[in-house]
């Protein structure tokens, strides 16, 4: 007699989830068609995708248990690095965007120097305070950064040449949309790889029980640093994309609380112990905020984020995507001994 699989409920969930994900991806691919000529609709989804990449990047660090409230530092430094390089030196954004990621990693090394002994709430508060350093520097170092005037007239996203074809991504909203979508899917692949690899197992083990992780031979500090560097790299790249997408940045904007808080909100609502939850939350909540609440409450539309975070903490502590997967792990399955 064969026993019924004990995990039938989560298995059903996983089938629903997979269908849902494919459907979601299909929708993302055809949104430019659905949006028709409405540039605004497309811009909202482009921005939502960009915030999704920030949430994904933030979550790389959160897998290791370190909650950062200061990712605007990496985002802002990335935006300014790419913006200044392209404005002052006229470098192609193909080169400035990756450089922005490296600059954000350099900032991460500084964060590490000051914060590597801190854990939990102390680490979070230290990162919250740390954002002020690049913000004040950018704001006041007029000679280098043009100070509080910000950077105006930034070049758009890079153009793409395929043989004789030439796609100017920034010329149309559709081009920008697909550029960010491709970046988002690549980052999703990277995060999936990290989650499922031995690195991901190490980071999760450190998050759950650092002492036990260490006793199993995991070099805790080395892996925590690696997670911070990877997270900063992609946050910086996202910041650079933002700069070229909006084409105007200023210190208060890119170093603002908004970009520190929003990945935390999306990760907690979507499920920070999941791979895709944070990105899904961004793609659902941001358009909801912009299309539904912004017209109704132009001044207070962001209350949505406050409300959903309270609801999530009270009723779905592992996030809505995390809740769907509750009791089921995807990375390693048991089975008979081979």
């Amino acid at each position, binding site marked *: 007699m064969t026993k019924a699989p004990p995990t039938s409920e989560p298995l059903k969930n996983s089938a629903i989830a997979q269908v849902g994900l494919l459907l979601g991806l299909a929708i993302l691919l055809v949104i430019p068609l659905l949006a028709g000529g409405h540039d605004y609709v497309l811009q909202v989804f482009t921005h939502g995708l960009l915030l999704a990449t920030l949430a994904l990047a933030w979550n790389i660090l959160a897998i290791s248990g370190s909650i950062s409230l200061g990712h605007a530092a990496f985002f802002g430094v990335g935006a300014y690095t790419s913006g200044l390089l392209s404005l002052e030196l006229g470098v192609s954004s193909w080169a400035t965007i990756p450089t922005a990621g490296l600059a954000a990693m350099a900032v991460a090394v500084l964060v590490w120097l000051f914060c590597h002994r801190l854990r939990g709430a102390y680490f979070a508060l230290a990162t919250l305070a740390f954002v002020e350093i690049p913000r004040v520097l950018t704001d006041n170092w007029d000679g280098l950064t043009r100070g509080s005037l910000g950077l105006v007239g930034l070049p758009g996203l890079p153009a793409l040449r395929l043989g004789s074809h030439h796609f100017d991504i920034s010329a149309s909203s559709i081009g920008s949309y697909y550029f960010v979508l491709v970046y988002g899917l690549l980052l999703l692949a990277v995060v999936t790889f990290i989650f499922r690899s031995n690195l991901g*197992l190490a980071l999760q083990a450190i998050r759950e029980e650092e*002492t036990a992780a260490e006793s*199993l*031979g995991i070099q805790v500090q080395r892996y925590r640093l690696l997670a911070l560097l990877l997270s900063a790299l992609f946050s910086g790249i996202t910041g650079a994309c933002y700069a070229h997408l909006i084409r105007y940045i200023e210190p208060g904007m890119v170093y603002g609380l908004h970009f520190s808080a929003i990945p935390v909100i999306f990760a907690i609502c979507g499920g920070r112990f999941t791979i895709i939850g944070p990105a899904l939350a961004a793609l659902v909540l941001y358009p909801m905020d912009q299309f539904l609440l912004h017209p109704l409450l132009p001044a207070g539309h962001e209350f949505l984020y406050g409300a959903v975070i309270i609801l999530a903490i009270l009723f779905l502590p592992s996030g809505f995507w995390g809740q769907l997967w509750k009791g089921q792990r995807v990375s390693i399955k*048991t*089975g008979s001994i081979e």
Partner: protein
Amino acid sequence: MSLLRLEALSKRFGEHWALKGIDFSLEEGEIVGLVGPNGAGKTTLFNLITGRHKPSSGRVWFESKDITFCRPHEIQRFGVSRTFQSSRPFAKMSVLENVVVGRIFRGELHLFPRPTDINTARQLLELVGLAPKGDTIAGELTLSERRRLDLARALATEPRLLLLDEVVAGFSPLAVKQAAELVQRVRERGVTLFIVDHFMSLSLRVSDRLLALDHGKKIAEGKPQEVMRNREVIRAYLGMRRDEEAHSANQAGS
């Protein structure tokens, strides 16, 4: 050569000596029980051996290596693993993943867990009787299951010396008996065991020798029955008899 040798090992926290001048050796293949009342320094001793704390003075030798000031992950790689007094599973990971983590950070690093790592992890779950729970989230296990998971995870590192900290605390007599059988099976795999056991319920069943501590000092070592009859040990656990008390008070007064 002894597998583990402690040489005049001492640890001071502020003004308080948690351990003072402990000399002791463990031979390969032995099961040694570490007993003593609360606050005797048993867990501190484990923390010194595994590198979690650094001793104030003295040395720890593992075979011919001086591991006194090595870091925990280095000591683990030499072949020393431990479980914790309060079981510490990776609560949000599956039971199987918990054990796999024990496999994959020894020596050569790989990108993904290899099939052999996963297979060995499954076999270890069979050994400790958790095979049907492989996909369960570790945080949902019962106390006894958690302790067995701790054991499987520590065994996954293929230790030569395994330190078990209070693995049977709070267990029923039947569960203690099963744990004793499990410990014997672990020994048969060629693992030397050092077992902290406040109530001696496990160590009396399985130990070849006992080491008794009280207030950070070694008060007895030897065959379990001898240590059990040792006057100092009885005193440490049960306090002094009236006549002894009066006698020592007289001595202190004179």
